[in-house]
């Protein structure tokens, strides 16, 4: 055979004469993007993704037109590129155009709304099948603390769960904790680490962010040391969250699993006191600051300096961890100011310390409270009194100690920037409560001690780049509550840590690659109508200990799910995310370069999903009209059941639809589903 030589993207290639450029690349292990090509059928040339530029035709001349690599023959001496600006632009527009007429959810709303991008649909499917180790393997691709997070996460996944359009969202968070508990109980899944790279990374802060960053960087083969000022690792999970929500033993087990990857963990090391940032920078190849936000914010209200006025975080610190004695609050009246989860933890902890009356002072109403609804419910069950639409005006002391709190009565006005209705004071209306202790739980801020030379934001948080996580110092990264917008939920810090680990890894591997949010296709305006045929199945209830029992101790409130209930609950998943997401060529190419299909938004073809063919569900809204199914059905299966109907933009792939005998002619040869580059065709296993 006559061999020829050419260059593709700078790589010297050899192939037989007469093959296409696409095939020549393939034979040399190079993939030129393509969507409508398959070796089993004739060349078609529709998608245009395989466009290449020939800068030298072998005689020193460029070919002026872009060529389709699927049809253009490879010629001796060709210098071919598919990464020139012109080709990239052509491919970008093609992908943007395709995406502008592509309707589907790459991933379900659960995963899409998880700040860490946890693949909920994936692990729910495993749980439904009883494969808990498998579920945890999927979870731990993004999140190394599922038993802890599953117990405490405010679960944006559930808030966005589309099952709510049928009846109620899935109990995703508890299912995650359930699977993780099962996994930990018996031969837990443990990730493998790459061979040692010799790079050393110091992570300051052993909370969820620091642990997660360490977990993923260790897997890349780097040597990780986590330093923490506290006695034990866990950060807010340990010192902020009370044991009745997250038992310390569970947290310990998960941290053990992380440490088991070979991560050095040093406790009792405070930055700025026991070690300085410059020392760390000298000793390590990279430093990640994940120090958290540990100071409670003040309320800027008169009397704040009185004894008996304390911060929520400080109040919880020793009690939550069990490292300190729980104070005896018997007979005392406590005011907790704030409406978030820290306020919840504080008020419920106060109840458990025996307090007579615990008031939650919140300036809006229950509907506006940022705290988890279930926690509010449970706290009321436990005896907490809510003072909605009130705001501390003054803390009144007696002999230097708090005795009363004066509350300004509020009313709701117009919605503010956050969309919530802003509370406004009602002129001259006040209320007073007798209190012995005031706990301020209105927010946390960074304690910037030891962060010498690190630039802070106006808010007093560490200024970190949102794509590289870099601070102003070239080898110092920062993530989590300590940065930018300040304290957020744990899963948000975990997501940042995960992405930061990728960036740090890229930087240590020689070239820093900033994080870029992956492009995903999303459906808009999904309505309940779509699910009206679904059988309603109520959300599982988490059994809890009775309020009158649990209010006296710090044992876990939740009693946990059974296998049967968990599997049934997981089976409620609607599987909103595309079945083909992992294999989809379209989304893979769409993420190789930055695309913005929204700028080309326009009419989309809309089609109902149909099951006219045996075994095959067809979703034409995901179809990109590569016609591979039509061609493979005709050329390979020799059936010709599918055809292109119509012309131009409204063209659609259809099987003929009247004569049942022809449809029966579709055997489950799967050729069309195998060859479909997107999730438009789905093979349905027959029962």
């Amino acid at each position, binding site marked *: 055979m006559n061999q020829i030589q050419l260059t593709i993207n700078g790589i010297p290639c050899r192939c037989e004469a007469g093959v296409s450029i696409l095939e020549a690349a393939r034979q040399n292990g190079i993939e030129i993007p393509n969507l409508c090509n398959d070796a089993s059928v004739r060349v078609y040339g529709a998608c245009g993704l395989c466009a290449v530029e020939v800068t030298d035709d072998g005689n020193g001349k460029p070919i002026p037109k872009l060529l389709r690599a699927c049809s253009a023959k490879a010629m001796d001496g060709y210098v071919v590129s598919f990464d020139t600006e012109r080709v990239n632009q052509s491919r970008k527009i093609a992908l943007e155009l395709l995406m502008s007429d592509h309707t589907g959810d790459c991933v379900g709303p659960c995963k899409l709304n998880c700040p860490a991008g946890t693949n909920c649909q994936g692990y729910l499917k495993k749980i439904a099948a009883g494969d808990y180790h498998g579920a945890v393997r999927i979870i731990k691709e993004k999140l190394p603390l599922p038993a802890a997070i599953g117990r405490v996460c405010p679960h944006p996944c559930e808030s966005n769960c589309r099952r709510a359009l049928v009846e109620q969202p899935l109990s995703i968070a508890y299912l995650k904790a359930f699977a993780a508990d099962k996994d930990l109980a018996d031969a837990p899944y443990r990730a493998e680490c790459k061979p040692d790279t010799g790079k050393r990374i110091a992570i300051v802060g052993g909370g969820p962010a620091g642990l997660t960053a360490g977990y993923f960087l260790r897997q890349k083969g780097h040597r990780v040391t986590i330093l923490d000022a506290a006695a034990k690792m866990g950060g807010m999970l340990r010192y902020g969250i009370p044991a009745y929500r997250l038992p310390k033993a569970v947290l310990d087990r998960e941290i053990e699993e992380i440490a088991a990857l070979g991560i050095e963990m040093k406790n009792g090391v405070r930055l700025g006191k026991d070690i300085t940032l410059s020392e760390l920078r000298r000793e390590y190849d990279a430093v990640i600051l994940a120090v958290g936000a540990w100071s409670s914010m003040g309320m800027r209200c008169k009397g704040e300096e009185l004894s008996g006025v304390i911060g929520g975080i400080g109040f919880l610190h020793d009690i939550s961890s069990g490292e300190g004695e729980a104070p005896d609050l018997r007979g005392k009246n406590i005011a907790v100011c704030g409406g978030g989860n820290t306020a919840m933890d504080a008020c419920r902890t106060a109840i458990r310390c025996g307090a007579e009356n615990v008031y939650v002072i919140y300036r809006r109403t229950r509907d506006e409270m940022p705290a988890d609804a279930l926690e509010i419910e449970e706290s009321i069950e436990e005896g907490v009194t809510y003072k909605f639409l009130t705001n501390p005006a003054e803390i009144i002391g007696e002999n230097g100690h708090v005795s009363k709190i004066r509350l300004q009565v509020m009313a709701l006005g117009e919605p503010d920037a956050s969309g919530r209705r802003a509370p406004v004071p009602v002129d001259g209306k006040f209320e007073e409560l007798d209190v012995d202790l005031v706990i301020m739980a209105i927010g946390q801020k960074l304690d910037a001690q030891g962060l010498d030379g690190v630039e802070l934001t106006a808010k007093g948080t560490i200024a970190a780049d949102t794509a590289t996580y870099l601070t102003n110092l070239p080898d110092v990264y920062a993530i989590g509550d300590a940065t930018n917008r300040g304290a957020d939920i744990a899963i948000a810090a975990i997501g940042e840590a995960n992405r930061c680990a990728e960036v740090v890894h890229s930087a240590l591997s020689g070239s820093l690659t900033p994080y870029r949010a992956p492009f995903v296709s999303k459906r808009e305006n999904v309505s309940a109508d779509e699910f009206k045929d679904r059988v309603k199945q109520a959300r599982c209830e988490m059994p809890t200990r009775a309020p009158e029992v649990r209010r006296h101790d710090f044992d876990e409130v939740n009693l946990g799910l059974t296998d049967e209930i968990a599997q049934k609950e997981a089976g409620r998943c609607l599987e909103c995310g595309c079945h083909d997401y992992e294999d989809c060529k379209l989304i893979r190419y769409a993420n190789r370069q930055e695309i913005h299909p929204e700028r080309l938004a326009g009419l989309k073809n809309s089609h109902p999903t149909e099951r006219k063919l045996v075994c095959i569900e067809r979703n034409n809204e995901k179809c990109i009209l590569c016609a591979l199914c039509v061609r493979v059905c005709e050329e390979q299966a020799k059936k010709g059941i599918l055809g292109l109907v*119509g012309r*131009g933009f409204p063209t659609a792939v259809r099987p003929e639809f009247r004569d049942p005998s022809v449809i029966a002619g579709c055997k489950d040869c799967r050729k069309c589903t195998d060859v479909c580059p997107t999730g438009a065709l789905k093979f349905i296993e027959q029962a």
Partner: protein
Amino acid sequence: MSYRILVGEGSCGIAAGAAKVYDALRPLLADSSVTLGVTGCIGMCWLEPIVDIYEDDTLKKRLVRVSADHAAQIAAACRNNTLDALSALEITEEDSAFLTRQTRIALRNCGIIDPNSMESAVKAGAYEAIGRILRKDGGMRPEAVIDCIKTSGLAGRGGAGFPTWFKWNAARQSAGEEKYLICNADEGDPGAFMDRAVIESDPHTLIEGMLIGAYAIGAKEAIVYVRAEYPLAIKRLEAAIAQAEAAGYIGEHILGSDFSCSFRIKAGAGAFVCGEETALIESLEGQRGMPRLKPPFPAAAGYWRKPSNINNVETYANVAWIINNGGEAYAALGTPDSKGTKVFALTGKIRRGGLVEIPMGMTLRQVIFEIGGGIRDGKQFKAVQMGGPSGGCIPESLLDTVIDYKKLGATGAIMGSGGMVVMDESTCMVSMAKFFLDFTAKESCGKCVHCRIGTKRMQEILGRIVEGNGKTGDIELLEELCAAIKDGALCGLGQTAPNPVLTAIRYFRDEFEAHIEEKRCPSLACGALLRYRIHADQCKGCTLCAKRCPVGAITGTVKSAHCIDAEICIRCGQCHTVCKFAAVEVY
């Protein structure tokens, strides 16, 4: 003294009432020595119906805008030999200049011979060229025919302008016994009709040109792919093929030679993309007319994957003339880059619209102003659109561009198949760009992504601009899409679809900006952007506008000036239409 009356019966003439004139004349001449016949289209569309009166072979009178009511007058004048009595109907000298400035090769017999009569065609020289080629002694070998075409410099007249000899030679060189010669008569450019005129007026010229092509490449079968919307053309071509077959010009051993060739007609079914040669082949094979990837080119693997040659009607219509007069004679016309003549369909806001065949090298100004007589209704010239959906508009400043493939290409427009649509100040260039994108988006076959979705998106963006919803950045977005579609589309339809938009932006960017930024249509053509106001000094208070206004936006009492409430006004323009005092201004 015997007169022969010819009524011009092209589709256009018939539409204007030529058949009725013929029908009215016939009984009036039944018992006279005056003969009555039909001819095809002379190309002076604005004067239809046209009746020519010949004495022997000399044109004595050309009567224009004739109606059936004139029949008696015409019949009487011919019978009584008083042709001068018809002077009121006679064409003016000024209008005659339309023809005298032309050089007619492809159209040489159009409007002169009877398209239904073989005898009439032969008398005008039909089949001389093929006779010359197939002559037993001193005939021409296929190579010599191709050489002659090469010398002539004839290029494909369908739009791309590819050298005809090269395609013929490639098809000739391709291995295989079975070859096909195809005529693309799927004239789809909305604004071009020269191919239809040739088939309707002089079908034998097409047949002869195709015979010569078939002989040159070695094809035994010739196929004409005609638009289904051209029923008269199909009818006349069918008849002509039957006549030529009977006369031995089609079939086995033509004129006693070894050359055999059959002919057939295939009617298209309505798809502009089938003007693209590989889509046309797919359609001929009974498939969806979706273009194939090239290579292979049809010359190597075309119809049924056999070597095939495709040219359009006008190209073939030149061939016999070239053989008869020599390639040099043809090459003597035109410019160094573009030889011979080109037929244009001159239409739009032009005073004298019709078919124009001129040598390459004339300027656009000469064609539009000297032949076409300039803009009608006293308006200002704005642009001329050439090449239809694949072409572009050329502004006033470039009117001295000479007609030549390269020079026209440099303007961003193309020679195209010959549509030349003239626009005046009242034509909105944004709206025209949208018109063409509406067309291409509708005609896109849907195969390749760039064209299927890209033209749709361009159409949508242009749509929002003319509706007054354009956004800053839309021009740049259009330009970006245009560039990508040109680069990425599979076939000529898609690759050239951006041209109308690109040229409109290039020459009339200010109009786009006015639509987008000021929500104003400078040509006062885009309904959604128009505003109406009543001039108090001109308003007589007749109340007509207020009565007609469908939304009650106009207030005022009898004999006092009226007023339009812009908030209520839906811009329907009724007030402007009904006002007898021109008091309603559109702005």
